[in-house]
């Protein structure tokens, strides 16, 4: 696991500093306020005068100490602050997405399996596959078009198309977790919470639409596999109702691969929410990273990539642990 993270960091480092088109890293560690006399010292401190492999270790040390330089495109704030101030928003979006994905995808998959090759299966298949054939950017805009613009034109109550919370309400509640919905609930401010939820619906659904198809297909495949097993014949031969057979006997077995998937999803969402955040102007880490890439803010990109990789690795670990609970045959 550590190896993977190190590997990622090495690749990222080489890509951002080692290639000919890389920019001078010094630019990231100075602000307009830096005095020219200090520049030499800064160069020494971060090892810019050293050969590349040694620079890597300087960078590693800096990274651990939390010094990631400054992001000039974000008002010159320290990069890690830029990242972590936006991170909770991405987390909020991801959690909401995962909830929607499971809430819609799971039943869809189960229906598909139970009514295999009959009409409900076909319908659920089309929904699922359309889901993951849809480009994230396109779907987001279409949602905005319909639920924001046209609803507005037609005089219907409409959903907001951007940001996480209406600007007016922005400071209405103490920022405990920085996640608007959660903060609203914690502060007991109904208005705020509802507004936050309203802002969350479209982007979360946009993300969920794409992943729920995938989940539904996996659940379907898994359920079909399980329903073919001998112990299901046994359960039916006991005279148990179909309902019990499915929910008590089949589902628990079928969920095992689904759990893997959901865990990886969540991790993937944290990274891939980029496009959706962009489309909905969601103040999360994904949108920030797009700007960083276009501005060549390599430090930010490195931080972003590392954290995302770390999350995926951790997610894998959590999934493995979840197996322990689901499948009694597995022991460590």
């Amino acid at each position, binding site marked *: 696991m550590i190896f993977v993270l190190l590997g990622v960091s090495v690749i990222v480092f080489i890509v951002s500093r080692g290639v000919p088109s890389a920019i001078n890293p010094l630019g990231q560690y100075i602000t307009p306020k830096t005095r020219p006399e200090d520049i030499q010292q800064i160069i020494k401190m971060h090892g810019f005068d050293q050969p590349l492999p040694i620079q890597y270790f300087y960078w590693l040390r800096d990274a651990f100490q939390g010094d990631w330089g400054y992001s000039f495109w974000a008002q010159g704030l320290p990069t890690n602050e830029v990242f972590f101030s936006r991170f909770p928003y991405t987390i909020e979006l991801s959690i909401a997405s995962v909830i929607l994905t499971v809430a819609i995808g799971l039943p869809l998959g189960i229906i598909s399996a139970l009514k295999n090759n009959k009409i409900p299966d076909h319908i659920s298949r089309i929904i699922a596959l*359309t889901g993951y054939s849809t480009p994230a950017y396109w779907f987001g805009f279409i949602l905005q078009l319909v639920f924001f613009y046209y609803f507005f034109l037609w005089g219907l109550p409409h959903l907001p198309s951007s940001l996480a919370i209406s600007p007016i309400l922005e400071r209405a509640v103490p920022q405990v977790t920085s996640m608007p919905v959660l903060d609203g609930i914690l502060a007991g401010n109904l208005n705020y919470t509802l507004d936050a939820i309203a802002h969350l619906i479209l982007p979360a659904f946009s993300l969920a639409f794409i992943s729920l198809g995938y989940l539904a297909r996996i659940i379907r495949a898994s359920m079909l596999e399980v329903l073919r097993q001998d112990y299901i014949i046994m359960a039916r031969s006991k005279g148990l109702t179909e309902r019990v057979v499915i929910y008590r006997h089949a589902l628990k077995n079928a969920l095992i691969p689904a759990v893997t998937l959901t865990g990886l999803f969540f991790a993937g969402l944290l990274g891939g929410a980029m496009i959706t955040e962009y489309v909905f102007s969601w103040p999360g880490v994904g949108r920030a990273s797009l700007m960083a890439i276009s501005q060549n803010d390599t430090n930010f990109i490195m931080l972003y990539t590392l954290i995302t990789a770390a999350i995926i690795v951790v997610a894998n670990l959590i999934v493995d642990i979840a197996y322990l609970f689901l499948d009694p045959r597995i022991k460590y």
Partner: protein
Amino acid sequence: MTNKETRTSELQATIADIKYTLHLLRQNPLVVIGSGIAIFFILLALVANLIVNPAVANQFNFSRSYLWNNPIISWGPLARTGGPPAQPLGTDGYGRDLLQMMILAIPLDLRTAFIIVAGAALFGIILGAIASYAGGIIDEAVLRVTDIFFAFPSLVLALVFAALFGRTLDTLTLAVLFVWWPPYVRLIRGQVLAEKEKTYVEALRAMGAGHLRILFRHILPNSIYPLIVQITLDIGGVILTFSALMFLGFSPTPAIPELGNLASDGITHVFDAPWLILFPGLTIVLISLAFNLVGDGLRDVLDPRLRR
């Protein structure tokens, strides 16, 4: 049995297999529809350059941007400006007929998708097959490297690659290819590891067959089903990723007819000229959906346990 006889009977067996697969596929209406759509697009791609003048992509006529003259649907204020001749799907931001641009874009997208998938699959399969068959350190090393690639969200890696190595069509193709091969390694690894332990491999070794021969003439053909499924599904996926790259602004020039590229023009005018995003996107959905339907149907049908 002579070599020739063995090969003919193998061939007959394969043909019978294929016939059976087609029979099963025909029974699934969704797959039939999906393949129909896919074939339609492929044919369209083949004739595209004949029905539409490729030079259209280079015409920039700003006086006719964002026009739509459809009497039935009126999209918004901007649509009504401008003059007569109706383009069926309106014009894009540069005054080009959207429909013509889309038709030009289809062969480009499909071709790029095929190249990427073929390249990624070839690379991934060969690398994975050799590594997992050889075992030991090689296997470990390849596994670790693949893990590292898996830890990157694919879009990020592709974006970073593209940002650094310039924005030409070729680098973008390479960027996506770069990101797309790890799943093949995993897939083929699972298959090879399982097949390696089977007794027929031992028998082949005892008969003196060389490693490469065993790997490529025996193990790979037995593992081919999941690969076929993955390749089909990936064509749909790659189109999405590639067009996403274009959409996000990494396209070299707006003159390139590519569906994501076309859609990106429409961002600023989503509400005024929604057709610009709507139609290219819809086309991507259709193409991707077609391949996904076929791939999904194939997955159901090629599952060895379901075949009788």
